[in-house]
């Protein structure tokens, strides 16, 4: 009986695939513009529409795709490009680890499918939803992930096709959509938890450390260093209290 209740709740509207699709909608504009820009940049660096599309299907990571376009244009070696992509996307380790407690109820294969389509954006939406729960619904997460994935593929393809006519996508402010999305996700996260003071200390530490670290190493390494240190500072203040 109890089993049935759980089952019913999991399939209710709140946790449905469709709800996941709906919860993805606010973020579509952000990734649409970044994906579009990635397509344009790919085209400029001499990649074919097919190559750009294949990148979006298989790699599905904005920062990596910008870097590949840049390094291909600069004739970087295959090993150097793959290694750089690895470093840039290492932060996914942290996102994936932070989401793991909410998918204990799924099989390894199903968790793998969810992880495969994990991005900064779907992570942000999912972790906000997870704020006051113990588990996230698989259908809801797939709705969110697959919508974001298709949006990304279409956006980069459009950018690749239209790239020959568009030289300056920055004029429309669309490049800021990604930062604006991070602002929105950060604020939602801060307001959704009952730890505002400690969270603000973590935020300020992360910003200071990322600025300092990116003066001596790459931006993506700096993001990892700042995330790890700032989270540690958060735990330390908790302990002192």
């Amino acid at each position: 009986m109890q089993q049935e209740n759980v089952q019913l709740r999991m399939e209710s509207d709140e946790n449905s695939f469709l709800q996941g699709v709906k919860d993805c909608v606010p973020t579509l504009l952000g990734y649409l513009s970044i994906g579009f820009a990635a397509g344009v940049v790919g085209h400029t660096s001499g990649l074919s529409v097919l190559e750009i599309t294949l990148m979006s299907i298989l790699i599905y990571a904005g920062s990596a795709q910008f870097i590949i376009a840049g390094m291909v244009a600069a004739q970087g070696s295959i090993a150097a490009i793959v290694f750089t992509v690895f470093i840039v996307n290492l932060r996914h380790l942290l996102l994936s680890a932070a989401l793991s407690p909410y998918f204990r109820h799924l099989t390894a294969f199903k968790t793998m499918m969810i992880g495969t389509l994990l991005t900064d954006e779907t992570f942000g939406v999912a972790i906000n939803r997870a704020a006051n729960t113990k588990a996230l619904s698989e259908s809801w997460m797939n709705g969110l992930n697959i919508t974001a994935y298709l949006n990304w593929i279409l956006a980069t393809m459009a950018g690749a096709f239209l790239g020959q006519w568009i030289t300056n996508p920055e004029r429309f402010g669309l490049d800021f959509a990604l930062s604006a999305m991070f602002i929105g996700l950060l604020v939602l996260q801060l307001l959704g938890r009952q730890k505002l003071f400690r969270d603000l200390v973590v935020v300020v530490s992360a910003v200071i450390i990322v600025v300092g670290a990116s003066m001596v190493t790459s931006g993506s390494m700096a993001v990892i260093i700042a995330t790890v240190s700032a989270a540690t500072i958060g735990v330390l203040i908790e302990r002192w209290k």
Partner: protein
Amino acid sequence: MEIRWDILAIIIGASIVTFLPRVLPLVVLSRLQIPDLAMRWLSYIPVAVMAALLGNELLMTDGKLTSLKENIELFAALPTFLVAIFTRSLLGTIITGVISVMLLRLIM
């Protein structure tokens, strides 16, 4: 319209090194009982990573602090933050940000 062999090698290599960090912690850690301290640490990751990404995007250009006068994005972040705090709407926040940057670039 073609796919070159070296580009294909890059795409496959990059997709493997992107796939592993995304999937391994989710698959492995969701099977383990994570110690309380580690859970607390993980609970700060979302706030920390968003702040770090933002700090990097808004304040830095090529490893240097962006000069305040030229930093349109930082100015645009102000109304964006306000809309986020008072409306709690993700879409409203993104639209405010994009329009702010567009207007500031027209003026400055």
